[in-house]
């Protein structure tokens, strides 16, 4: 790669954006300020949100989940941008789940946004991706785990930083196999997402040599998630629900809607670990990860946001950093140029996951390790040792190129 030295004429711009500028430095710089206008790269964050309940109040997602990750990355991009004459902005728009996303998306685009982070349902995401295709808008999916968005329903103008159900399930399965806990029972909920995650777990069992010895559906009958007397009832209900299961090593729960999974640990008929939507959970990030320089982003995030960083924050951070990295390397703010670079062999982003992260060329899914953790600890990260791949070990997680249904 050729050297990208910053021309001297851009240096005065430095003072426009740096934080904590010492007095002496600011003074020195301000004399020279007022030169070139920086290249502005407008990023939008479109989210479907309403406050959610959870089985435990401790699991209720923070109101700024995801948005905060994007904001921290914008500050990071702007620190780098100050040396290169680039300025990044974030425009956050919030709608309700199931609301039309296209109208607010169009408004964003009209105001000059070229990159949109989508924290939306699969349907909403497809609607805005198709609405923005003609205008060359690039969408980053930071939340939706549906495999179909990367397969049958893949779109050339969509990149995905959120991992898929199959990547998460494969990451979990590899660890269970590494532990030689091979016999699993699967309890899944009655919602569509529960079934998708359950399907991913079945696929993972087949791929890695696990055995699902029994399955059971836990139907959502719409009961209140919390009540004063709930604890006593749950203590009696969950053992009975798990009583008739055959011998197994691990109980897998697929409950994407906070209906039952959190009630399983310590309440099963036989003492077995729970994994999946409760117990040992697979995720793209963990609030306690300090590996691979993670302490640095965790500190930076906590200082700015006053809470720990969760997966959707990291997905959003990685999306904004991907755009920033492309802008740095190409010294450009042109959408198509940046998207081409992200697709190219030269692209890589460092995101505290121990190795360079890249996007799969066949469906634009970010390759990434899967964290396995409980509420407070990272237990392991997958891929596990010994799961080999001819291209990248990260491609042992999720749908691989030979199996893909995506045609971009």
């Amino acid at each position, binding site marked *: *790669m*050729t*050297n*990208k*030295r*910053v021309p001297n004429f851009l*240096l005065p711009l*430095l003072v426009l954006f*740096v*934080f*904590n*500028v*010492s007095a*002496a*430095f600011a003074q*020195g*710089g301000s004399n020279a300020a007022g030169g070139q206008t920086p290249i502005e790269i407008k990023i939008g964050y479109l989210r479907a949100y309403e406050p959610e309940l959870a089985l435990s109040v401790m699991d209720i997602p923070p109101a700024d989940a995801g948005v905060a990750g994007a904001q921290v990355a914008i500050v*990071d991009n702007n*620190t*780098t941008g100050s*040396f*290169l004459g680039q300025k990044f902005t974030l425009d956050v728009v919030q709608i309700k789940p199931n609301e039309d996303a296209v109208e607010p998306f169009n408004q964003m685009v009209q105001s000059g946004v070229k990159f949109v982070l989508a924290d939306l349902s699969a349907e909403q995401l497809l609607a805005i991706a198709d609405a923005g295709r003609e205008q060359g808008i690039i969408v980053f999916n930071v939340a939706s785990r549906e495999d179909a968005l990367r397969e049958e329903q893949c779109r050339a103008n969509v990149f995905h930083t959120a991992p898929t159900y199959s990547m998460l399930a494969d990451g979990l399965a590899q660890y269970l196999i590494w532990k030689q806990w091979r016999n699993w029972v699967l309890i899944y909920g009655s919602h569509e997402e529960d079934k998708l995650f359950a399907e991913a777990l079945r696929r993972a069992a087949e791929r890695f040599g696990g055995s699902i010895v029994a399955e059971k559906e836990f139907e959502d009958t719409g009961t209140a998630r919390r009540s004063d007397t709930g604890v006593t009832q749950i203590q009696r209900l969950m053992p009975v629900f798990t009583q008739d299961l055959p011998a197994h090593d691990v109980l897998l729960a697929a409950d994407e809607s906070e209906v039952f999974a959190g009630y399983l640990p310590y309440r099963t008929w036989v003492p077995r670990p729970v994994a999946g939507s409760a117990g040992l959970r697979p995720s793209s990030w963990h609030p306690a990860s300090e590996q691979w*320089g993670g302490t*640095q982003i965790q*500190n*930076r995030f906590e*200082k700015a946001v006053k809470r720990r960083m969760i997966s959707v924050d990291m997905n959003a951070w990685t999306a904004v*950093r991907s755009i920033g*990295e492309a802008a*740095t*390397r190409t010294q450009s703010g042109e959408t198509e140029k940046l998207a081409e670079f992200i697709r190219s062999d030269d692209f*890589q*982003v*460092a995101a505290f996951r121990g*190795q*360079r992260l890249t996007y799969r060329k066949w469906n634009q899914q970010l390759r990434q390790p899967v964290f396995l953790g409980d509420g407070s600890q990272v237990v392991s990260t997958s891929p596990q040792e010994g799961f080999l791949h001819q291209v*990248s*070990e990260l491609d042992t997680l999720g749908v691989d190129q030979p199996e893909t249904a995506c045609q971009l």
Partner: protein
Amino acid sequence: MRRYLPLLAISLMASTATPALAYKAYISNERGNSVSIVDTETMEVIETINVGQRPRGITISHDGKYVYLCASDDDTVEIIDTATNKIVGTLPSGPDPELFVLSPDGKRLYVANEDDNLVTVIDVETKRMIVEIPVGVEPEGMGMSPDGKTLVNTSETTNMAHFIDTETHEITHNVLVDSRPRFAEFNPDGSEVWVSAEIGGTVSVIDNESREIKHKITFEIPGLRTESIQPVGVRISEDGTKAYVALGPANRVAVIDTSTYEVTKYVLVGQRVWQLAFTPDQKYIISTNGISNDVTFIDVATDEPVQSVTVGDQPWGVVVAPN
């Protein structure tokens, strides 16, 4: 040096091999919150000092009297008196100090503050902070030109080597390098600065005159994926002919011919090799191996690993006393 002459004579008599002089190597143990002192002749730990939390960057005054240590989680630089091995003071490092470098005259310490995107300049004698210099995101590597005029800081998320004029404290050049630049090292004549990129997997050789990358070194180890080759610490021999690069989870130190930039050898050391330091006589280069909790002595003449020594929990940095 003089006081070691009798020792030298004894070891000459005892062995026909080239004698090693006894120096003290100080190793910071990131997780152990300690510093291990290793005798470079016997290659044994002679003392372990309890220090502040998360010790990482470590260096020593040019007269060998004081070891400076970044106690990252305590937001301070600790001063260890090498005569007593006691902590005798602290320096106002700014938050989360990780790596630092002393000016050639030993009067100033330049510290990278990872959490605040700053380089802090400290007057060692008055123990006062002189100035904070804003740099890129997650500043880490710190290299000082032999003439003391130029400081190079690397920022891990911005991916730049920032060239800073030590008189004006202003950035004069920003050179874009590969992902997660970890370390900057000038060659002895000051004509080049070598910058390692951990995630990028490369070492950029930057011409100090033009401030442009003149060569990019890549690494290839049979049986290892390129992702697992992650260059961190870099040291160049006093005669300028050989460079050593610690390759992180590749568990090897690369030896590079500085005239051709070709890797001549990969030396297998311990797990997750982080930082490197030469003994003053240039007989050994010592690597810290974070996961295997040891340091490895590499013989500079043969580039063979000669001895691994178990130290504290997660050794991070290493410095050898000059006398």
